[in-house]
């Protein structure tokens, strides 16, 4: 196999589209080349299917069964058809939780993507000492396990001796003596948002910053020499190149934030969870696990999967299409 015989993959596709169709020789070399993509994806597919294949099938089957603790011990449940789905979809709590979670997800994604991108851009503009400090802070924030971050947040917002109440009172922002930050749903979810966004920003910053490294300096300088303001340079030069990365990060953020569980659950605490502050992930945990109704929990899981797929389909479509255009 010589290089003259094999053009680059990108040009190849274009050429193939333009060339008149002709039969291609069926050699071993060509078979191997044709099989290449399949060989490349085989390990990934194998791992995923081997580990998740049965659990997924089992989850789907569970959603059509009555499966509580008794059935778990007996190792089989009784089929109830669509009863689990019907009971969930007829539960008004489910719909309230859904709306609340969508609003929560939008807020988190917008804040994280917005702040993250701005910080990534800032990193290109600061002197190296500040860059190192800021990157260090981001990595440290990233490295903190969510359960530990929750404990720190709880500590800082402790009504008795939390530093937040202390600082706000000292700075005369208001009287925050023994203010209970977990009294209202809005306050609880806002604190959860602050925690999640704080934890999500580092990944976004690092990824966007890495993506910025792929933006050729020449293009940026050319645009600047032409007199374009920074915003236009960003919009016309940087964004198109970063588009696949933005789409990926946004779609991943939507998926993760929609189903988030650990942070809001630990922050609000079981003793204050009720139908006015539940998010989807918590709702699933309460209905499926706390009440040990695994069949219902499975139905909620499948519904969550479908909803999240629906919410992110726009971005996923764009990503696939952007990939097709570039390839």
């Amino acid at each position: 196999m010589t290089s003259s015989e094999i053009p680059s993959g990108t040009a190849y596709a274009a050429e193939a589209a333009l060339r008149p169709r002709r039969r291609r020789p069926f050699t071993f070399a060509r078979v191997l080349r044709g099989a290449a993509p399949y060989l490349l994806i085989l390990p990934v597919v194998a791992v995923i299917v081997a580990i998740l294949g049965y659990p997924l099938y089992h989850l789907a089957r569970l959603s059509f069964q009555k499966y509580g603790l008794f059935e778990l011990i007996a190792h089989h449940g009784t089929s109830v058809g669509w009863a689990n789905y019907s009971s969930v979809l007829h539960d008004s709590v489910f719909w309230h939780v859904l709306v609340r979670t969508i609003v929560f997800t939008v807020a988190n994604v917008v804040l994280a993507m917005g702040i993250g991108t701005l910080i990534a851009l800032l990193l290109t503009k600061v002197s190296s000492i500040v860059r190192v400090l800021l990157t260090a802070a981001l990595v440290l924030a990233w490295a903190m396990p969510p359960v530990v971050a929750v404990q720190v947040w709880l500590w800082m917002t402790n009504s008795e001796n939390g530093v937040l109440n202390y600082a706000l009172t000292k700075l005369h922002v208001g009287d925050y003596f023994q203010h209970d930050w977990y009294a209202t749903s809005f306050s609880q979810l806002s604190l959860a948002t602050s925690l999640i966004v704080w934890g999500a920003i580092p990944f976004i910053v690092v990824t966007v910053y890495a993506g910025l490294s792929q933006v050729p300096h020449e293009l940026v300088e050319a645009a600047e020499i032409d007199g374009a303001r920074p915003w236009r340079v960003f919009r016309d030069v940087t964004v198109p190149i970063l588009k696949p990365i933005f789409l990926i990060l946004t779609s991943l953020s939507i998926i993760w934030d929609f189903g988030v569980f650990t942070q809001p659950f630990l922050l609000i605490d079981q003793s204050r969870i009720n139908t006015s502050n539940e998010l989807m992930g918590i709702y699933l945990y309460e209905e499926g696990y706390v009440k040990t109704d695994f069949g219902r929990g499975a139905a909620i899981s499948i519904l969550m999967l479908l909803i999240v797929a629906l919410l992110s389909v726009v971005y996923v479509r764009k990503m696939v299409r952007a990939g097709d255009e570039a390839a």
Partner: protein
Amino acid sequence: MNARRRRSRFLWDAIGLLLFLVIAFPVYWMVASAFKPDDDLNAFTPTWFSLHPTLSHFSDAIHRPFFWDGVKNSLIVVSVTVALSMVLAFLAAVALAKFRFTGRKAFIVLIIGVQMLPQAGLIIPLYVVLARYHQVNALSGVIVTYMTFVLPFSVWVLRGFLLGIPKELEEAAMVDGSSRLGSFVRILLPLVAPGLVATSIFAFITTWNEYIFARVLLNDQSKQTATVWLSYFYGTSRNTDWGGLMAGSTLIAVPVIVFFLLVQRKIAFGLTAGAVRG
């Protein structure tokens, strides 16, 4: 022009420092608390730092049963998961980004679909499957589980980076003679290095901090990972040892930071060296 540059840089630096303070504050709070004696920790007025710092929390944490086992197990699980996942994900990402093949759409659906699964729903079925193959209470069971969660987004993010490489770069580097596949790998690898680094950091941190599956799959305390070890600080029915928890968390964070320091140069390198190579 020069003065304006300096002024704007000063402004950026100021904003950068402010952000540094805000973002690092919770981390600072955790580390500072690890050095505070119990009285300062429980005091009514929070103190920025203790006047009588103590190392007792750290020594308590290290001497707690299974600390070193926890660190060792986490290191094994995470390094194997990240190494294998990066290799496999990169290969799959190359396939997705550079080839058109039937079943591509199905593979994409698989990759994205897996990420949309609510993990909580999978715990028990996954446990049953792994138990059947004796992978419960074994690090290998945890590794393959983590791989299924790390691979999809790694493939997805790496695909994005591969697509972002301008065509000119690919073609410019494609000149020397070698097989298409081999050249793809050898040439694309350095170009996509920043993306690989970002993804590997994410994979490292996510698996290092993962807790839900580790605690269910590992029973022997000698096999448990560091995050499960940490949960024993706040899992008692009595009062939590806050100082110990903060000290333990600080210690657990060290390997992550070390890993980041080792690989972070690739990102900066990409930016400062310019994107097009000779």
